[in-house]
């Protein structure tokens, strides 16, 4: 590991601040959003525009936050979501698109391109046997039966006014229990009987696969959810060429087409890039883009992609190494300083400890307004996580170093610096190293979440796998990440042996050669 590498990585991310940067295309973490984003990317590339992909970057709040601050440039959004989840507003059904487009421009400078041509509304779905048993056809029927049923909804749906809260209010639903489920797992949970009702999307390929019944919104509660590309203020202002390319897709995808495309991804498990390419060929009438993608770490074939896992592992390791090095550089001197300033020690270390309690995904979300998306915010978040174990271990290690030895060194005329370098630090070295090992293992784990803000690494297949309900894809990231944690811990254990003070080392020469 060297510094230039770190600087290069930093450079990759600061690139996003320049005006000639590639167009950053992002999506929410579910299949249709992936596919639409990939179509955006390919149509831009077909016009010779450089593109950076951030598939599955996050839920509505994260994506929109990134878009309005120009951290990303375009992602697929739905008018109803924009109306209710972002504007917290209402509008008559016919006026939703116009209203949303106008308000977004006024409030945020964010532009809605013309809708793509299909609507993807919430589809409240139940198993066929439950529908038959309780004779459910509409949401009003569901409300009647709801006290006997368990709902399994995505966090997005539970938390939104146009989701569960509104449904409860308008239809008077009272489920026996409500379980939050990840989008990837809800169909399996429903099929296996773990829950009775889920929030699906009307264009989901999986609705057909699991033989589900969607209930009619007989009171017209859900606003229309017309899909459209939303673009950042920067792109709308500076890149008319990109806007023109994206507009080629407006009005070109109908609901039947979208459902068929989703099925190819979610049910037939075809590669997203291939499906997108086929769709664009149909829409635009010719092969729109170079066959090969510019991005070397990208969704390729759906069988185990060994080369990709190798590249992702290297990337993962690089993220961990940089964050860990930076944490050591800060936390070790901090721990040493705190030993000299004991009064400040516990409050300082305690404050770092509080950082540990912030869930990784939340910490990463906090980073977006500050650092945008990509490598830099991920590194900052990982760095913050690594500080606590190292600072804590350094502080208590030097504080608790053999008090007789420290005192006699002082009484014999060793200066504070000499006592630190000759006595406290060497005696604390094993404790400090154990802190570094803890930090390293935490960082390897947390780095899988870095993929949520587009920093790459082994979290990428996990995020994609979750979005596409593909267990194999999830495992292709999760297993190497677990192995990596073990390997990193083992390597650091060897380094720890070498740093162990002489009196704690065994006389015998070990096989590992400490």
């Amino acid at each position, binding site marked *: 590991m060297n510094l230039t590498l770190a600087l290069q990585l930093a450079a990759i991310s600061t690139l996003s601040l320049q005006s000639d940067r590639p167009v950053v295309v992002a999506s929410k973490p579910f299949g249709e959003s992936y596919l639409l984003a990939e179509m955006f990317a390919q149509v831009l590339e077909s016009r010779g525009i450089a593109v950076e992909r951030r598939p599955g970057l996050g839920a509505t709040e994260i994506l929109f936050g990134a878009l309005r601050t120009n951290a990303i440039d375009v992602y697929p959004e739905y008018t109803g979501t924009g109306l209710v989840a972002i504007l917290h507003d209402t509008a008559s059904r016919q006026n939703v698109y116009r209203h949303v487009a106008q308000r977004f421009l006024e409030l945020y400078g964010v532009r809605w391109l013309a809708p793509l041509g299909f609507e993807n509304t919430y589809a409240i779905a139940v198993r066929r046997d439950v529908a038959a048993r309780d004779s459910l056809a509409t949401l009003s029927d569901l409300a009647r039966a709801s006290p006997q049923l368990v709902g399994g909804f995505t966090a997005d749906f539970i938390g939104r006014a146009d989701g569960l809260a509104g449904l409860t209010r308008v239809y008077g639903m009272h489920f026996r229990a409500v379980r939050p489920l990840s989008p990837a797992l809800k169909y399996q949970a429903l099929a296996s009987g773990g829950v009775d009702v889920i929030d699906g999307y009307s264009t989901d390929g999986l609705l057909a696969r699991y033989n589900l019944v969607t209930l009619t919104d007989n009171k017209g509660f859900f606003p229309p959810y017309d899909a459209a590309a939303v673009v950042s203020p920067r792109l709308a202002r500076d890149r008319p060429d990109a806007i023109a390319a994206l507009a080629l897709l407006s009005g070109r995808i109908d609901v039947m087409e979208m459902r068929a495309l989703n099925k190819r991804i979610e049910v037939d498990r075809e590669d997203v890039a291939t499906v997108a390419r086929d769709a664009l060929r149909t829409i635009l009438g010719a092969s729109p883009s170079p066959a090969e993608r510019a991005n070397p770490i990208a969704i390729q074939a759906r069988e185990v992609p060994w080369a990709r896992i190798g590249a992702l592992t290297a990337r993962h390791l690089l993220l961990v190494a940089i964050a860990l090095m930076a944490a050591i550089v800060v936390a070790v001197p901090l721990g040493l300083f705190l030993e000299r300033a004991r009064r400040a020690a516990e409050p300082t270390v305690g404050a770092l400890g509080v950082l540990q309690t912030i869930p990784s995904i939340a910490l990463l979300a906090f980073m977006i307004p500050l650092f945008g998306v990509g490598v830099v915010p991920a590194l900052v978040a990982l760095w913050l996580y690594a500080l606590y174990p190292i600072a804590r271990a350094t502080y208590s290690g030097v504080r608790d170093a053999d008090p007789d030895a420290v*005192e006699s060194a002082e*009484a014999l005329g060793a200066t504070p610096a000499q006592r630190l370098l000759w006595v406290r630090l*060497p005696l604390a070295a094993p404790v400090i190293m154990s802190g570094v090992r803890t930090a390293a293992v935490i960082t390897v784990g947390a780095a899988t979440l870095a993929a949520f803000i587009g920093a790459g690494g082994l979290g990428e297949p996990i995020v994609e796998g979750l979005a596409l309900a593909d267990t194999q894809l999830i495992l292709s990231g999760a297993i190497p990440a677990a192995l990596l944690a073990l390997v990193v811990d083992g390597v650091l254990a060897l380094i720890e042996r070498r740093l162990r003070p002489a009196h704690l080392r065994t006389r015998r020469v070990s096989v590992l050669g400490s």
Partner: protein
Amino acid sequence: MRHRFGATIALAGVSVDVPAGAAVALVGESGSGKTTLLRCFNRMVDPDSGDLFVGEANVRTQDPTALRRRLGYVQQHGGLLPHWTVAENVGLVLRTLGTRDDTAVAEALSLVGLSIDTFAQRYPHELSGGQRQRVALARAVAARPGAILLDEPFGALDAITRAEMQDAFDRLRTQLGVTTLFVTHDLAEAARLAEAIVVMRAGRVEQRGTIAELRGAPATAYVRALVARALAQLESLGRSAT
């Protein structure tokens, strides 16, 4: 000289002088202030009021680090650096001065009766308790200090090792002629090793004198009881031997 820790008066109007080349023992029970007084000499404790002189120089005006390098120090548990070899430990004071002197280290070790060939490369955990205290003693004298301060140097040793150490210490002091101030709770040890004994109690000096003076003309009831207890111990030892 006066000193207090928080609300506790550790030293109250104490005055002690140690003639050059002599050995003086501070004797007293726990809490009598003897260790606090000892630590005033190398500024590990700074008294609230009063002055100390080492030679002609007032301790208060001196840089503590430089002062400490000129005063040897031995603590009850040795305080050897566990990750340093015997030779490195003995060379500690020289190293703080930025020098390295293998001859001085070898001499210091031989003064305490340890062979350099056998012990130089060992670590403290490979030594017996007595050997560790010898190394601590060698470390205190390696840089040839003007005076040495010892805080219960043999207090943690068993009786036999303790007697051997007292002999070794006596020899070393005779050879070096170094001014010595040491703390002990054992009047017999003080009588054996020191020319003058200072009996302390509750931060005050009860009496100062040779063991003969303390025995012949005890200044207080406390001193009389202390001497009587030590003599009774010796007598009971003598009786059980015959």
